[in-house]
């Protein structure tokens, strides 16, 4: 099948690689930014630059195996970067714009639907919020021109695996003829699919929001419980396991920690919080977001209290800067807030991360205390002269360090475990002062 992919989100690049791999002819226009020209010259004189693999955004380049896979498909000729004019001829379109780029999508829909007689299926994976599919559908005049909403559920770090092997697929489309084409397109990836969830585009949008909000609420709740556990001296780990074994609850999204980050998750919740607040005057999700922001600083607060509110001239080590393991992305990561707080309190901050250091370096390059920030090649180097270690991202390589080397290297054997990865009992027996999240 011939499919045009538009937009620069991770799922655009992932879909390009995966659809091409399955033999489709993929025409890719990642940098489409609307068509601002009018009249006959419109498509001849497109302002949109033709992209190259090199133009992929950082999160795409960091995604394991994705660039290699894209290169293979380019080499094989099934994937092509094209101009707007070439790509608009396809019947199938796949949109993956940023939430703020609804106008790009609108402009694109107007462009491809100019001929109201042609058959058109536009699968939108961009998260524009509830009601956006209806707005896009309104650009179409022809009966055989359909918007389908397929929510983006890709986790950064394992995007390829999830795209190729989804557990379920939500398709917001109710036109049989269009569904037939969409199913055919997704068929190679649907061997293990438990459920095709078919619904209207509006329902699919709502489902996407509802799931995201639910997960956020679970995280916020377990974090709240963990903070209380700190105060009443019980171990949240025990509580969490017991809660999770109740089948009505389950284990997912019940790990307390120092807050969630990432490109999408907080952004989606922000959108949902806004919608709920406007339509229902509900502050539930805005509270979740506010609390999450506070939670990101939890390791800082524990350190602050340990040192009786004075961190001047302390050397503090941080392990893990990415918003989660397996990615270089620092988008909304707790490390951003913690480092800022430590620098402002006059700390020297020594950081380590297997992938995200360059991003952190760029992020803090204009900070007025940037000279207090040091980047270390190894996790142990980050511990030299350290008055305390904060673990912020649960990279596997941090799980079982050589404790003796840590004790020998650090000034003060203080460990603040923002992800509850260490065995508290063992750590304490070794002579560390240990603070977890709720334990």
């Amino acid at each position: 099948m011939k499919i045009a992919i538009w937009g620069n989100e991770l799922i655009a690049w992932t879909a390009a690689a995966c659809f091409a791999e399955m033999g489709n002819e993929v025409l890719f226009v990642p940098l489409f930014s609307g068509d601002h020209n009018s009249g006959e010259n419109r498509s001849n004189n497109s302002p949109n630059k033709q992209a190259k693999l090199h133009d992929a955004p950082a999160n795409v380049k960091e995604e394991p195996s994705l660039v290699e896979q894209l290169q293979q498909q380019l080499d094989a000729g099934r994937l092509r970067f094209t101009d707007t004019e070439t790509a608009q001829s396809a019947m199938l379109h796949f949109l993956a714009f940023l939430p703020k780029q609804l106008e790009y999508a609108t402009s694109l829909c107007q462009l491809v639907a100019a001929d109201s007689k042609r058959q058109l299926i536009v699968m939108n994976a961009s998260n524009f919020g509830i009601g956006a599919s209806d707005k896009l559908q309104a650009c179409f005049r022809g009966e055989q021109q359909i918007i389908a909403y397929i929510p983006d559920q890709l986790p950064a770090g394992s995007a390829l695996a999830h795209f190729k092997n989804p557990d379920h697929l939500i398709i917001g489309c109710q036109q049989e003829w269009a569904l037939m084409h969409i199913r055919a397109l997704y068929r190679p990836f649907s061997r293990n699919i438990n459920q095709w969830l078919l619904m209207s585009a509006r329902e699919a949008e709502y489902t996407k929001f509802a799931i995201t909000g639910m997960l956020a609420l679970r995280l916020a709740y377990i974090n709240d419980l963990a903070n209380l556990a700190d105060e009443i001296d019980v171990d949240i780990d025990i509580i969490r396991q017991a809660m999770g074994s109740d089948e009505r609850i389950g284990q997912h999204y019940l790990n307390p920690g120092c807050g969630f980050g990432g490109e999408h998750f907080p952004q989606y919740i922000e959108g949902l919080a806004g919608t709920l607040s406007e339509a229902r005057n509900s502050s539930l999700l805005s509270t979740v977001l506010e609390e999450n922001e506070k939670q990101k600083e939890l390791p800082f607060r524990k350190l602050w209290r340990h040192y009786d509110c004075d961190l001047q001239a302390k050397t503090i080590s941080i392990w893990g800067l990415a918003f989660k393991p397996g990615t270089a992305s620092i988008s909304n990561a707790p490390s951003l807030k913690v480092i800022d707080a430590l620098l402002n309190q006059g700390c020297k901050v020594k950081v380590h991360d297997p992938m995200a250091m360059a991003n952190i370096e760029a992020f803090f390059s204009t900070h007025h205390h940037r000279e207090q920030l040091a980047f270390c090649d190894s996790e142990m180097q980050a511990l030299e002269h350290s008055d305390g270690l904060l673990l912020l991202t649960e990279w596997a390589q941090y799980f079982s360090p050589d404790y003796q080397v840590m004790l020998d290297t650090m000034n003060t054997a203080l460990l603040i475990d923002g992800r509850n990865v260490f065995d508290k009992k063992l750590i304490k027996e070794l002579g560390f002062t240990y603070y977890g999240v709720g334990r």
Partner: protein
Amino acid sequence: MNNISESSQWQALQDLADQQRQQPIHQLFSENPKRFEQLSFRHGELLVDFSKQHYQANTLENLIALAEQCELPNWIHQLFAGAEVNHTEQRPALHTALRLPEGKECWLNGENISIDVQQNLQRMDELVHLIHTGQWRGCSGEAIDTVVNIGVGGSDLGPLMACNALAETPARDDNGKLAQQAAIDVHFVSSMDGSQLADLLKVLNPMRTLFVIASKSFTTIDTMANAATAKEWLNQNANCSETALIARHFIAVSSKPEKMQAWGIPKQNQLEFWEWTGGRYSMWSAIGLLIALKLGMSAFKTMLAGAHSMDEHFRLAPLKENIPALLALTGIWNINFLNIGAHAILPYDGRLKNLPAYLEQLEMESNGKSVNRQGETVDYNTCPILWGEIGTNAQHAFYQLLHQGTEAVMCDFIVAAKRYGPDASQELRHQHQLNLANCFAQSRILALGDSVLDDAHSAPAHKRYQGNQPCTTIMLNELTPFTFGQLIAMYEHKVFVQSVIWGINPFDQWGVELGKQVATKLLGQLDGQETNNLDASTAGLIQAINQ
């Protein structure tokens, strides 16, 4: 100089007053169509209209002659030059130095005090920046988002007034950009009985609250009692050492570093101001910290610039165009020659709701005196009784007395010509028009009486308006940090000019001391000590409590 009331200039004014009293204000208007042109004055965006005063345009010349007889120009020079104008406390009064732009010098005892001023502004800037960026941490490590000013008198009224007056000015950072941080919640507590503080403590989060103890002497009992209560409240909620608690939750502003130190305030949390700044002239100093927190440092500096522009006008403009001097001399005319002893402050702007309280202190604490600089009792009236209220609200309260009572009252109408931009709702913009119409209507009737009607004479006596209450209208183009700075500086200089005419020291306040001493003694008696030495009333009241 001999007693000013015996001078020929004083006598001339007395004679003029006897004549002019016979002629009601409405006649002055009908006789002289150029009254507004002759009696209204502008400085930048400030327009002051004296034409509704009860004098003829040329009376100002006599008043200026009196000021010259009192050597006003020399006194103005002395004030700015740092002379010991506060002779009873051997201090200059250099609030004008607080508003000097960076780079300008002000020398006092061989020292350029502008350097101290700029350094202190820099320190304020750093604190404000830390708090605005959420990097001032309370003892739990959470960011401070609420600041409570503990102060009284000059350490309370000025910042409180400015914060309310300019709250529509959004906080901006040093570069004038809108501050990203959510606005800091600011509160003011002053009352000695703790009632304001107790109410606040019920709703504030101790971990996110910072207190600013503002006291020039750092001994003011009202303030120190509130500070102690705040500290106790924090202690009950905190889990850290007392040193850390004070370091994270208290900033102090005082002219006494050693006393701040003794209370436990660490050096980096101390902001200084100086003996040469009077308490009621101190909102331009670090006492204005809350203003900077609420509005941003840039707005605070703009307010200083506004005041400085008025300082320069006051220092350089000839008396016949010198707005603070003319405002003062108009007051002198009303008080000393028309024998008016009451002065109403009527802001037609809800944002200036604290202006009356501020001016009550500024004027009555400065000039509420009856002994001149030579230590002699004066034989003329000095500061009148000031009071006031938002004009439109006062219309439903004490305007009855202004219109039909037996007391002569002089009135200041303060109003902003423009408010509410094109983004505001039509209704709100209409409210501003309504407000302006009321402001002009009231001053018109107060001055001109029912002569503004064609058929007033036919009304029964209880519906008549005699008019003749002299009114000044002070109109700002817009209420901004700059024009607000100008407005307040104008009143400060007005007070100084009147003190020069009356020959009194406006910068001390000995009249508030005795009460403090006596109260301290009575504390013991309330705790059960002998009350024999007291008057029967006080003894009886204490016994009624102790029974």
